[in-house]
């Protein structure tokens, strides 16, 4: 092709490649270029993009070596003829390596694209650090064309330099070639060359160069967009890694060798397994054998850090169990899909019923610790497939089955099944009920009819694809599972139905298999006329004028929607109009933590008020879907029109955090602020964050608080701290917290056992409730919370104990993959009070639950693994926990387990402190809080 005539500016990339940087080459005459870029033409079609990106480099002292058969010349490209005969990518790269004249060298493959400033940034990184290898960040492009960081990008988050690979062996995880710039003399000096007999020669050179490098510089700047990883037969991968292992044995430390093994197992093994699983049945045994023999030769220590499912995969490879390997790949690569049939034996759960005849097999297949048996129905992916179907007119009759893993759908329970059809990226759903035909411990067979014409509707949004999922509901819990179809030719790409009504988008409904292997429906045009109409329609839609019109329309629609839905509008109408409506003196609006759930003080005030049966009407506000509420209670969505209307007319407001600031309180309404916890951390005006706010925002906060007519306190500590910190102006009710009444009242063993039953917790285990608090850092948003306790150790030391973990609602709990049956996530329980009634021991750090739990008199342990950080570098505290804690203060997981196992020994030592603690922080929690509050607020008796 004639490159000189190509319009470089029009060529691809993320807008980073510009023709106007093709200035005259300013390389000094006669001097060698500083950088050589070797482009190996292994794929003719994609080479243009790659070459364009090399030519567009802002760094101009470079030579571009194109190793290709193609004869056409470009003034700035040196063409190198590849050696004669069947050549591999390794041969092409070696030819470039040999011909290069630069001081540094970079290798790109066809399909890769260098960022415009890649060479400049890598040269600067190398020079600043005096390094022989410079590495930058690479990305892939998503299907929408956006750059996406691969997992290895976490290595490239800041500018750093390492003296050698030994200082950061994790760099080996990244096998990509095009994001690395090498000192050419270093490569030549050590005789580093690309293997010519495998498809993974890049991997080999990367490993060798990193190991030999005197200095490695890392920059987070994006230097390349990669199309695809190196790919080839598994036997090639094994061969390359054997060669690399041999090399590293002679040139690298044991630490680096181990890191390379681990990186192979975590990065490349899953890929290798996927290749094996997807391969044709003819190649698979050989591939498995070669992979298996390689894995066997690895030292045992490399497998120690591996996740259990990967270890299982390794074992299955060595056994040559193709189906087993496929099922592991499904789990790891396809959204935790369980396509194997788990079996339960002797109280243990095994991946399959094969290989259980040997002790090693039983050990490897034992997945009890992964906790499948503990997963909720919605978390367990039950493999479902279509067995048979036919179409009659517009009706699809379908029959299929779902694997009943571990008997999670008991035969004696009633299961509801339905087919849920939803257009891509919308929350609208169409549900078609199915009938259960057979239900055994192993599987459920179902069938049903779906009316395609009513279920599948493009609508004005123009939906063209619909996902198909099965909804299984048993005992109030439900689960949505996709339907697998990935190696099922009967259903993979079949025309179901055709209908003229769906013009111009298409006229035929076909099935398709998504990249994850699930069944979906797609609307396509079929036939010459329909295709033509669809093409014209698409062109019209994307034409600039149409796009401009659509944008304008979008602006209009969004503006109108904001007018009608926006909270500001509602607030304004509330203030101007709604508060003038007549008041309903007996209506009470309740809200808990901004509509989060039905729990905490407002709940218990409500229950007491309901018990009085005095004609008060309760309205509860919820931010999401409301839970089932007792009869006669209205629920309103928070920030909806009904919410504002209810507040405007209410006689009383009851909440525990703060109703939206835009809502001004009419004088006729009484606002009871129950608050939600005593304070260890500084609050309100005592916090640095408040002080950092501009004056007008501070005023707004104060106005919010001024609305409160009543404020509930549990102790004089609250009165000393919360009242001035929040600038409370209303009447302080010294009644204790209504939510703690059950803690004081329900103390007998029978009552507690009943609560355990209700919650589904084991009656005879020792329940340890772990409720850590939220750690603020400078970054906002939800945090991941990792458990600092070694669950294996806990299981060994305290087999009778169950750890109930409840995180703050702003945190996401990640229990380690091998989560024990010994730990359970109870963060989703709406109300913590019953959990505290049920628990035998409380473990917390700085959370205000410590004040509540003290009412039970049961032991508490303080797990403050970051005590110094928390107390000193964040908000600051009102008192020293170490001085007043009514239980041991521990700093590590081991110390915690030690404390939990010796409770009876240390309990008497803390008795005095405990009494003092209750007296100081819970003096008014006498179990009569709800009664006192309701008496005072709703019946006006002078109390509290």
């Amino acid at each position, binding site marked *: 092709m004639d490159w000189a005539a190509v319009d470089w500016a029009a060529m691809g990339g993320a807008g980073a490649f510009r023709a106007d940087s093709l200035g005259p080459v300013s390389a000094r005459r006669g001097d060698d270029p500083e950088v050589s870029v070797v482009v190996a033409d292994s794929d003719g079609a994609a080479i243009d993009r790659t070459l364009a990106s090399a030519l567009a480099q802002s760094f101009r002292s470079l030579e571009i070596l194109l190793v290709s058969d193609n004869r056409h010349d470009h003034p700035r490209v040196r063409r190198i003829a590849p050696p004669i005969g069947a050549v591999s990518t390794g041969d092409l790269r070696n030819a470039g390596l040999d011909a290069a004249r630069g001081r540094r060298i970079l290798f790109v493959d066809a399909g890769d694209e260098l960022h415009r400033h890649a060479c400049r940034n890598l040269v600067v990184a190398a020079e600043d650090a005096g390094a022989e290898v410079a590495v930058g960040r690479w990305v892939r492009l998503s299907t929408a064309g956006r750059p996406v960081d691969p997992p290895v990008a976490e290595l490239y988050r*800041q500018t750093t330099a390492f003296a050698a690979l030994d200082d950061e062996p994790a760099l080996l995880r990244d096998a990509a070639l095009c994001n690395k710039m090498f000192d050419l003399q270093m490569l030549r000096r050590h005789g580093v060359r690309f293997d010519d007999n495998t498809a993974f020669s890049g991997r080999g050179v990367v490993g060798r160069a990193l190991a030999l490098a005197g200095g490695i510089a890392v920059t987070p*700047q994006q230097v390349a967009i990669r199309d695809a990883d190196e790919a080839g037969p598994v036997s090639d991968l094994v061969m390359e890694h054997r060669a690399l292992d041999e090399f590293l044995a002679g040139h690298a430390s044991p630490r680096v060798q181990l890191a390379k093994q681990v990186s192979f197992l975590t990065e490349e093994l899953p890929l290798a397994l996927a290749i094996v699983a997807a391969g044709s049945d003819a190649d698979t045994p050989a591939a498995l054998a070669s992979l298996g023999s390689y894995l066997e030769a690895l030292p045992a220590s490399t497998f120690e850090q591996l996740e259990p499912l990967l270890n299982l995969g390794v074992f299955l490879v060595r056994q040559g169990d193709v189906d087993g390997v496929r099922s592991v790949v499904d789990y790891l690569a396809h959204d935790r899909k369980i396509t194997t049939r788990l079996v339960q034996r002797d109280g243990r759960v095994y991946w399959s019923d094969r290989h259980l005849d040997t002790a090693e097999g039983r050990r490897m297949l034992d997945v009890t610790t992964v906790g499948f048996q503990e997963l909720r129905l919605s978390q367990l992916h039950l493999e479902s497939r279509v067995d048979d179907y036919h179409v009659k007119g517009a009706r699809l009759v379908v029959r299929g089955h779902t694997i009943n893993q571990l008997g999670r759908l008991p035969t004696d329970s009633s299961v509801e099944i339905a087919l849920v059809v939803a257009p891509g990226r919308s929350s609208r759903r169409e549900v078609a009920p199915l009938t259960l035909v057979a239900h055994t411990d192993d599987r459920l067979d179902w069938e049903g009819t779906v009316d395609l014409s009513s279920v599948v509707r493009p609508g004005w949004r123009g939906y063209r694809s619909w996902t198909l999922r099965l909804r299984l509901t048993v005992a109030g819990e439900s689960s949505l599972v996709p339907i697998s179809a990935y190696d099922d030719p009967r259903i993979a790409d079949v025309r179901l139905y055709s209908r003229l009504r769906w013009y111009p988008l298409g006229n035929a409904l076909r099935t398709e298999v998504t990249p994850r292997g699930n069944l979906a429906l797609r609307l396509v045009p079929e036939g010459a006329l329909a295709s033509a109409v669809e093409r014209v329609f698409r062109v019209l839609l994307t034409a600039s004028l149409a796009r401009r019109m659509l944008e304008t329309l979008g602006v*209009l629609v969004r503006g109108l929607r904001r007018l009608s839905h926006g909270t500001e509008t509602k607030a304004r109408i509330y203030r101007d109009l709604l508060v003038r409506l007549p008041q309903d003196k007996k209506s009470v609006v309740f809200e808990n933590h901004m509509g989060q759930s039905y729990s905490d003080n407002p709940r218990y005030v409500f229950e007491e008020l309901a018990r009085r049966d005095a004609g008060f009407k309760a309205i509860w506000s919820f931010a999401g879907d409301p839970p089932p509420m007792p009869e006669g209670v209205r629920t309103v969505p928070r920030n909806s029109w009904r919410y504002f209307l209810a507040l405007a007319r209410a006689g009383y407001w009851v909440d525990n955090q703060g109703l939206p600031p835009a809502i001004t309180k009419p004088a006729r309404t009484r606002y009871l602020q129950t608050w939600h916890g005593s304070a260890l951390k500084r609050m309100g005006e005592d916090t640095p964050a408040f*002080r950092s706010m501009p004056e007008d925002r501070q005023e707004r906060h104060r106005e919010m608080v001024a609305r409160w007519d009543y404020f509930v306190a549990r102790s004089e500590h609250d009165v000393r701290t919360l009242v001035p910190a929040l600038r409370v102006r209303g009447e302080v009710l010294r009644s204790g917290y209504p939510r703690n009444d059950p803690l004081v009242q329900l103390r007998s063993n029978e009552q507690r056992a009943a609560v355990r039953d209700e919650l589904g917790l084991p009656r005879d285990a020792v329940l340890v409730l772990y409720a850590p608090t939220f750690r603020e850092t400078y970054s906002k948003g939800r945090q991941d919370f990792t458990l600092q306790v070694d669950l294996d150790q806990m299981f060994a030391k305290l087999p009778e104990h169950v750890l109930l973990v409840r995180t703050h609602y702003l945190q996401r709990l990640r229990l380690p993959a091998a989560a024990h049956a010994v730990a359970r996530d109870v963060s989703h329980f709406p109300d913590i009070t019953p959990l505290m009634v049920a628990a035998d021991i409380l473990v917390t750090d700085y959370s205000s639950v410590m004040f509540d739990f003290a009412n039970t008199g049961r032991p508490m342990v303080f797990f403050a693994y970051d005590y110094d950080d928390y107390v000193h570098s964040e908000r*600051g505290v009102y008192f020293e926990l170490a001085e007043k804690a009514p239980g041991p203060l521990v700093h590590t997981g081991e110390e915690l387990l030690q404390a939990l196992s010796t409770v009876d020994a240390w309990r008497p030592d803390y008795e005095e402190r405990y009494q003092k603690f209750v007296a100081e922080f819970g003096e008014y929690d006498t179990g009569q809080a709800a009664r006192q509050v309701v008496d005072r607020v709703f019946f006006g008796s002078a109390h509290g």
Partner: protein
Amino acid sequence: MADARSRDVFIVANNVEEMGGLMRFAHTLGRLLSEQGHNVRLVGIVHPQQTFDYGHDLPYTTHVLHERHPPGPVEPKGLAQLNPRLQAKRAARSVIQRLGARRLTRLLRTAQPGGIVIVTQIFAMEWVRLANTHGLHVIGMSHESFSASKASTRYRRVKRYYGDVERLLLLTQADADDWALDGLSNVGVMPNPLGLEAPELSPVDANVVVSLGRFSWEKGFDLLLDAWAEVTDRFPEWSLHLYGDGPDEDALRRRCEQLGLTTVKFCGRTTDVPSVLMAASVYALSSRHEGMPVVLTEALEFGVPCVAFDVSPGVREVVTHGKDGLVVAPGNTSRFADALATLMSNADLRREYGRHGHESVQRYAPAAIVDRWEREFRLLDR
């Protein structure tokens, strides 16, 4: 350094006549580059409200593009986009901007190939991108931290207008990395040069804590007063001297009264920073927002240890906690007070910190910074 090729250098800023830190930077850089033999021209987009006399006989020339301030940016949102009057205003501004850009082009065309255009502020970049910079290298600069940009409209404009320049220079490596991770792949680092030189170190034995700056919300002097309130009772002989002025002065004086402070002195503005530092023992920086605080480098140059809130990577790049100063969690005035007390009670510690700080900031010495600039220029030619 070898290869001191003389170039045409244009330093473009919002204005080049005000007294603010950025303008001083432009003049300092202009002077330093002129001393290297380059032909430097300072270009301001507009005239400021209050001008400052930078002196005559400057080795560089100054130019201004607009005699009258052009209208502000017009960016209607939502339904307002359909308002024809706003669209007309937007068009009018565009025309005026292009006229200014044309004046800039005429100036740029007088340069030899290989010349450099340094754009110090994103506002100015809107003009530079409309001008013809063919044959010249354009370097952008952002003088605030990534997080400060992110929290303002400047974030969008930096991505849009600085995305295509050849190099974007940030004050600290951490900020450069933040922008790199956010998608800009043309970033580099260039700290500000020290504007002062200390002939000798401050004795740090006077019972004085100083802080200099504009009395506005960003500079956080109210937080400093809160911290001082916690520490003044323990050190009755010490006083806090505040140099500067600004819109919040009255509010700050009232706060002093409310807190019952008697040892705080409002000293007005000063142009003699060296004298102030020589008479000080501790420098306090209580800002809520900073880029790379030049005043900290100046304090350390004079051997005055610093106490500062950790509000941007720039603070930690200049002050090494525990070696030449104390860096405290932002807004935590109690900890700030503790840090002040630590230094106020220990003269030996102050001298040790001061010595370390002076050594440490030599990397910002003008000679070192000029070398870095020359390397940037050469890099663009390679």
